[in-house]
């Protein structure tokens, strides 16, 4: 009996352990296509930005400065060849109507009036058009704050109530990219940011330009291929 069992055990053991597999966890970098695919060396026109209708603040409108800032950043990245704006009589007319009708968002109004964006494509010698809209507000954030101060007499830290003059800057930037030749909106993003700053640091315009920068950087990022880290199991023997 033993003469049979021993070789049988050997054979079984051999087959069990020779076919045994183990696993190794590995992290892989997956390249994903960019969110927006544009043809290389394509041309872009950046339309002057609009601000959402705001009854309270009609004097401070940094649209031109923001569109110029965006143009500088995009040109620096050399993804597009940025062209000067030609004629946008159609848009201007619609914007005027939008303002008269006190539309909350000019871009939404434009899209509602012309869902296929065809009015933009008639006589424009460029591949893409960027439309932007900013909404902004400056709030008074002054008030008392507790600050930790060193007291040399008692040689310890104490909390002191201090009046701080501050302003709260809120910004919303809506960016839309339109493929002129195919009459399609290929990108839309709304960026919100808020910052509390001391009023002496810089002007309102500087603050808004700084805050709005990230929205165009997000746009530029979406033109680049993305990388995603994922894990997979490799099998070993």
């Amino acid at each position: 009996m033993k003469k049979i069992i021993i070789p049988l055990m050997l054979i079984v053991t051999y087959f069990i352990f020779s076919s045994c597999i183990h696993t190794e966890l590995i992290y892989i970098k997956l390249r994903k296509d960019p969110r927006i695919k544009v043809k290389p060396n394509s041309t872009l026109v950046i339309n002057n930005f609009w601000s959402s209708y705001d009854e309270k603040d009609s004097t401070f409108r940094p649209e031109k400065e923001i569109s110029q800032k965006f143009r500088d950043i995009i040109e620096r990245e050399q993804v597009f060849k940025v062209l000067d704006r030609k004629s946008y009589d159609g848009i201007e007319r619609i914007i005027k109507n939008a303002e008269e009708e006190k539309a909350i968002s000019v871009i939404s109004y434009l899209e509602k009036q012309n869902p296929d964006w065809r009015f933009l494509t008639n006589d424009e010698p460029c591949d893409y058009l960027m439309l932007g809209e900013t909404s902004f507000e400056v709030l008074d954030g002054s008030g008392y704050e507790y600050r930790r101060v060193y007291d040399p007499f008692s040689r310890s830290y104490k909390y002191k109530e201090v009046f701080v003059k501050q302003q709260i800057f809120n910004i919303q930037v809506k960016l839309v990219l339109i493929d002129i030749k195919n009459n399609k909106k290929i990108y839309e993003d709304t960026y919100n940011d808020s910052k509390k700053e001391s009023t002496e640091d810089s002007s309102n315009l500087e603050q808004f330009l700084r805050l709005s920068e990230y929205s165009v950087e997000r746009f530029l990022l979406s033109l680049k291929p993305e990388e995603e880290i994922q894990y997979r199991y490799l099998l070993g023997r």
Partner: protein
Amino acid sequence: MKRYLILIFLLTLLFSGCTGSGKYLKQATNFGIKAAKKGYWSEAKFRWERLLAEDPNDFVAMNNLAVCYEQEGKFEDAVELYKKALELSDNNKYIKINLQRAELLRTTKEIEPQPVEENK
């Protein structure tokens, strides 16, 4: 007698993976894993492709090669290979996890905006 049995058992265990083709398979597979872990994916791919060419039903090499394909961005090929490996391995749970993750990635990829067509 018991002592002899234990000894034989241990010796078999020791040499079971080191005989002939078994040793080669183990070495090639694990070398590929080491290479992949260090980021030498083309080297790993070469090893596993060769293993698969020698044995087209080798689900271990098949799974590992599918991971390579994913790394290269060939998601469709990877999913096909995972499916085949899963079938051959009789539903290995790790291959199943890999397949599920790859399929999830493929579906999210399909939702992404399509490339802009060239103008005629």
